[in-house]
């Protein structure tokens, strides 16, 4: 039995690669955009300006307090009711970005807050402007606490792209759904889907662990 299925599965492999390519595209775009937006908002959030922070905290809480599935439904099905039409791909990238930005914003502002006040005071005293303080003094130091959880967040987001299949995008998970209707051996089909996700995510997991050890030894031994 499995022999035939394996053979069929091998025949469908190009289809899987196509799906994987969609997954990679959606991941890469949304990771990039949520990193940029997350750093931007995280840096602003770390200033503790009251009015801005109320808005940012509300955004972060709402995103973190609702399922991503619901968020993507809102973007894909509800925005059109207000006259904003987006195709499935754009909706997927947009909702993943909104979702990822919230988490990265928290990671970045948390990292920045671990930097001692004296660093800001020294930078302020020497006449650096606020963007210069952030750019040259605070953020480079904050990368140390930011990077490991950031890479971890990337892994979570790549796995969460599986949800985009519900709005009809043929990513690698949806390819699995199609295939399992022809090859009724779920463990085989979704085993392959799982392996493909693992192949993208594992290097990142490894890198994240590596970063953590590297940064902590650097801290004690100083490189």
């Amino acid at each position, binding site marked *: 039995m499995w022999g035939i299925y394996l053979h069929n599965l091998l025949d469908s492999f190009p289809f899987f690669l196509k799906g994987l390519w969609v997954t990679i595209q959606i991941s890469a775009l949304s990771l990039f955009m949520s990193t940029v937006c997350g750093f931007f908002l995280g840096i602003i959030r770390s200033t503790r300006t009251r009015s801005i922070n109320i808005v940012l905290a509300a955004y972060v809480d709402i995103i973190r307090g609702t399922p991503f599935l619901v968020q993507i439904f809102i973007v894909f099905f509800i925005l059109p009711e207000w006259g904003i039409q987006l195709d499935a791909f754009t909706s997927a990238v947009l909702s993943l970005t909104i979702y990822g930005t919230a988490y990265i914003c928290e990671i970045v502002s948390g990292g920045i807050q671990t930097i001692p006040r004296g660093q800001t005071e*020294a930078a302020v*005293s*020497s*006449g*650096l402007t606020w963007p*210069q303080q952030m750019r040259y*003094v605070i953020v480079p130091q904050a990368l140390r606490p930011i990077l490991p959880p950031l890479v971890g967040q990337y892994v979570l987001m790549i796995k969460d792209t599986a949800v985009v299949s519900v709005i009809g995008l043929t990513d690698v998970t949806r390819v699995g759904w199609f295939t399992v209707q022809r090859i009724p051996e779920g463990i085989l089909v979704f085993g392959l889907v799982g392996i493909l996700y693992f192949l993208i995510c594992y290097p990142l997991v490894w890198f994240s662990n590596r970063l953590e050890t590297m940064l902590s030894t650097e801290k004690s031994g*100083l490189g």
Partner: protein
Amino acid sequence: MITFKKVNKWFGPLHVLQDINLDIEKSEVAVICGPSGSGKSTLIRCINRLESIQSGELYVDGIPVHDKKTNLIDVRAEIGFVFQQFNLYPHMTVLENVTLAPVKVRKMKPEHAKQIGIELLEKVGIHEKADSYPAQLSGGQQQRVAIARGLAMQPKIMLFDEPTSALDPEMINEVLEVMIQLAKDGMTMIVVTHEMGFAREVGHKVIFMDEGQIVETAPPDDFFDHCKQERTRLFLSKILTH
């Protein structure tokens, strides 16, 4: 050079600076001492508005620092500030620490800034550590780098907030020597410290603060030998006996 006129500051209900009046002339070296919590650090932190004041006037080189409209970048560029905890940038080399502000604030060419940086590191006796990172230096060395960093902006004023308090005793002198040389070169300095030897050697006036007030101001010799206030006498007896 620096003028306080009836300056008041509160931290919540705590009245940390009470009607402060103070004049520091160009090239003057003023030493501020007093018990902890007396407001002496707050006082010098107001000068470059690390802390803002709630009433009164504060001028640095004629510029109203208390005025919300004043461009503080220009004021701060003219004032070097040395912290108790050094606050060097740990991710930069010693030389990068010194050249950052001249390049970014003064728009100095990096090569030029490096040259000045090396000269200053020579002046504080630490040029061989130019490419080291702060954590590889002793406390005394770090504080000397911090002084060089302040001087790199070619400031008109240098402020020192307990510069030797975080140092091991054997490192205090190497920092004081640099500060003494600076004073002799004619730098305008305000130093919060309990190093009374420093005050006697190069100080022009000693200011005693207690509970947010300036209790007494006098030239060092008068201050130490014939202070007028009972509170000053009590404080001096505590710090000079050991």
